[in-house]
């Protein structure tokens, strides 16, 4: 710092984490917002930094954590009391002082709204402190100290990018799976597990019936009477296997699948749906879609839980429905709506998936798209989307 002749820029406090894989826990939640929505916003705030560095942030429910997050009022034990609505919104501690982040619980914390104070933006700012960034005097930067109001199309400022990469280096891997060409042996290998046929079934024509990540974070692809398990590098060895062999009760040629917050996975075909807990079907299934998911049509194309708001979405042809189990009715009258609302996505997709990295991906005829939830449009990346699913997901 010094005279104003100096170029405005980010500032480093002087300490940083030596490890890249950090974990965190929210030990005290704010009033007025569901835990699930707070969890999602906090995860998105950390993602601002993990998207541009090799840092990773994992929520844990027990044991010591690197970063503890609390919503508190007034004096809360660190000698730096909050001051009620307005004024100071939150504060955080640099790595050398522990990295914790505290938020003033008397603020009206909101999500994706011009009202109140946007939790995501303030959290992303405080986590910048937790990682070692001090306040920047670049007014447009995330690390500027003054709240600028809700920014629906928030993008990290170049100044913030320079600052965090000065501390932790650039990101070398893209946040998509199978970013490296898999070895010719193993994923996408010539043997076909069960039938001895080459698994060109996926590589030759990588259109799929359904794709889902289960509660144990394994991701499975279904096509015809067979299924594959995916790894970071592509298809796991020993696949494909037959659905009937491992998924007792599940038919072939399914339409779609999604995993809900209760850890159960729902598979759809025609007018019926099946519910599985991991690889075991629950009793009394299949059931009628019209009964369990009233308002949703039969013969859907895709079903997924959108990372943007945690709601369940169903796609069919050029239309989509939003299903909110907490609402009555669960599908509002304003649905169906045109898929064209989802900028950049095609109609009649194969299926969609919320992957373990928090992104939502859409698949169709061997291509896939990654969706940018904040911009509500297909993400812009290099190489651009759509990309060939065979090469990037199935290790072909």
């Amino acid at each position, binding site marked *: *710092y010094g005279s*104003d002749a100096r170029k*405005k820029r980010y*500032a480093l*406090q*002087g300490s940083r984490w030596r490890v890249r894989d950090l974990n965190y826990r929210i030990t005290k939640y704010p009033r007025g917002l569901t835990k699930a929505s707070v969890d999602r916003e906090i995860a998105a705030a950390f993602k601002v930094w993990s998207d541009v560095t090799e840092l990773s942030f994992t929520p844990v429910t027990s044991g010591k954590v690197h970063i503890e997050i609390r919503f508190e009022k007034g004096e809360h034990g660190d000698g*730096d009391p*909050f*001051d*009620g*609505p*307005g*004024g*100071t*919104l*939150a*504060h*955080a501690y*640099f790595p050398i002082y522990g990295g914790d982040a505290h938020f003033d619980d008397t*603020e009206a914390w909101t999500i994706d709204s011009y009202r109140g*104070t946007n939790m995501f933006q*303030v959290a992303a*700012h*405080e986590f910048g*402190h937790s990682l070692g960034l*001090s*306040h920047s*005097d670049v*007014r447009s930067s995330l690390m500027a*100290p*003054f*709240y600028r109001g809700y920014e629906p199309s928030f993008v990290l400022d170049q100044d913030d990018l320079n600052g965090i990469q000065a501390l932790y280096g650039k990101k070398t891997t893209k946040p998509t799976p199978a970013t490296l060409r898999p070895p010719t042996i193993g994923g996408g290998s010539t043997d076909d597990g069960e039938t001895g046929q080459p698994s060109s079934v996926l590589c030759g024509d990588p259109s799929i019936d359904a794709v889902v990540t289960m509660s144990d974070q394994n991701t499975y692809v279904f096509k015809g009477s067979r299924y594959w398990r995916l790894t970071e590098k592509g298809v796991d060895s020993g696949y494909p296997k037959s659905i009937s062999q491992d998924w007792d009760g599940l038919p072939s040629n399914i339409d779609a699948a999604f995993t809900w917050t209760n850890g159960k996975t729902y598979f759809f075909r025609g007018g019926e749906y099946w519910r599985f807990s991991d690889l075991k079907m629950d009793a009394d299934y299949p059931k009628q879609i019209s009964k369990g998911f009233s308002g949703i049509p039969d013969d859907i194309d895709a079903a997924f839980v959108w990372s943007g708001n945690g709601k369940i979405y169903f796609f069919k042809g050029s239309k989509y429905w939003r299903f909110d189990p907490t609402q009555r009715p669960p599908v509002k009258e304003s649905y169906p709506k045109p898929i064209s609302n989802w900028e950049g996505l095609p109609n009649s997709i194969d299926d969609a998936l919320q992957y373990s990295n928090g992104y939502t991906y859409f698949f169709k005829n061997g291509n896939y798209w990654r969706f940018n939830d904040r911009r509500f449009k297909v993400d812009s990346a290099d190489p651009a989307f759509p990309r060939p699913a065979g090469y990037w997901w199935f290790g072909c």
Partner: protein
Amino acid sequence: TPVPIAGTTTAMMYLARFGYLAPTATNPQSGALLSEETVTDAVKEFQAFAGLNQTGEMDEETVKMMNTPRCGVKDKVG
């Protein structure tokens, strides 16, 4: 909402809290005497950091910025 920052005392508390004045500056028990120049420089430094005109005065723009909700971490660290 907190008492708006308008009077000298609350402005000095703000400047001390966010690192533009020494914390003891606003503690009468410690008997620190501040020259007008020190306070003016502190206001100028805040104005420079916030991208405002550096008048050294508590003008309208400066008061408005001091009343903007913000992060509680100091602006001047180390």
